């Protein structure tokens, strides 16, 4: 059977297995990105509107997570998570062995890393909103929530989207590192297949192909969203 057949969906083919691994990559990436979004919003909030202590903490958080290799953070959550679960488990009276799923470790680790980057994007986007438009909203009686919803968020979105697109791309690529925990996503699956069949180049190329598909589709989606958020801006030729 030809080498390409190994990628197919026949009985000897790894195609189905690779496809499932690709979906796992998407799953852990989405989960991590959403964690990052929630935490990143909180951190951005702390840096923008918090008191001095909160601001310092938020800044320390960002500096730390951007200065430590992602793989170390993943190891920390994986091994550390095991130790935590083990400690809690034995304290509660359960017997070993204890484990933490690679998915959970990966999602939390990458989520934490992404939150640092996302908070910077969100902070920059907020600062780019012209203060005059916020005043105009306040002066006609808008409350804080309405102001955020109708004036701040739509304008901040324009600045935030490209940055968030970059963050998403980073998360997809970082998800490959979760393979060290044994989670069967694309990287791991491709390694296993390569090792089993000794067709290293083929399978690593296939893996690269899967990532390229995911990143290209994501890029198109974000560009679409960016174009739509640009309504009214000079030079975009939209409307009227």
């Amino acid at each position: 059977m030809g080498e390409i057949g190994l990628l197919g969906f026949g009985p000897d083919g790894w195609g189905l297995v690779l496809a499932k691994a690709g979906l796992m990559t998407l799953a852990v990436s989405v989960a991590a990105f959403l964690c990052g979004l929630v935490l990143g919003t909180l951190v951005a909030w702390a840096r923008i509107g918090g008191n001095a202590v909160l601001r310092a903490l938020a800044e320390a958080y960002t500096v730390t997570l951007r200065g430590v290799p992602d793989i170390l953070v993943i190891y920390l959550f994986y091994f550390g998570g095991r130790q935590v679960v083990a400690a809690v488990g034995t304290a509660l009276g359960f017997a070993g062995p204890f484990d933490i799923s690679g998915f959970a470790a990966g999602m939390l680790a990458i989520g934490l890393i992404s939150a640092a980057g996302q908070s910077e994007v969100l902070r920059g986007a907020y600062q780019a909103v012209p203060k005059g438009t916020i005043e105009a909203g306040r002066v006609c009686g808008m409350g804080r929530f309405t102001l955020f919803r109708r004036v701040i968020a739509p304008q901040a979105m324009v600045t935030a989207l490209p940055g968030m697109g970059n963050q998403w791309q980073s998360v997809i690529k970082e998800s490959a590192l979760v393979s060290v925990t044994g989670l069967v996503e694309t990287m791991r699956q491709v390694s296993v297949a390569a090792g089993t069949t000794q067709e290293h180049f083929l399978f690593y190329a296939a893996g690269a192909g899967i990532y390229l598909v995911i990143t290209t589709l994501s890029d198109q989606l974000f560009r679409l969203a960016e174009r739509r958020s640009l309504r009214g801006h000079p030079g975009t030729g939209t409307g009227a």
Partner: protein
Amino acid sequence: MDVTFLAGMFQSLLKGLPLTLNLWLLSLAGGGCLALLLNLMRQSRVGNAVAGAYVFVFRGTPLLIQIFMIYYGLAGFGVIRHSILWPFLREPYWCGLLALVLNDAAYTSEILRGGLRAVPRGTVEAGRVSGMGRIAILRRITLPLAIRQALPAYSNEIISMLKATALVSTITLMDITGIARAAISETWRAVEILLCAAVIYLALSIIVTRLCGWLERRLSPWHFGRTTP
């Protein structure tokens, strides 16, 4: 807090520092040169397509796959095994370095491209109108302004490459992370070991960030509110 353990751990981990620094600095240097080349290639149509494809592939796939591809994947080709490159390409060090260089080149070339695009056309026109030739304009106006524009993004890239070097531990290299992994499988005190390693990387990244900030302030004092250089 087992201080003797931690102290001993730091000592062991720091033995990996030379390799980490080596890979870090060489990948930035090699990547920078290749990035310049890529940008020069973009002048022609074919070159632009090639450079574009290169950047697309290397920025769209994880570094880990690039490392494995070079270390494991290339070895499958007879033509490589019998070439003069083989003594290098079968060594994890050279494979790792190659992967890092190729990866950095893709990101750096985009940063450089952005910097060049951000040079205001008016400043170049002002140079032309004062009689400067093309090379003079490039040297006195375009490149200095492009570098100043690109500096914040490039300092991010420098830190990224530091973190990227940690991945070579997956192909048996004993950099800081490699030593940490070995230590974990020996003593199983994972969290302490990993935190020590993290501290070392954090220290390096903070030093670099400060240096880059200083450089930014020196090169563009007007951005930071200073009225005199």
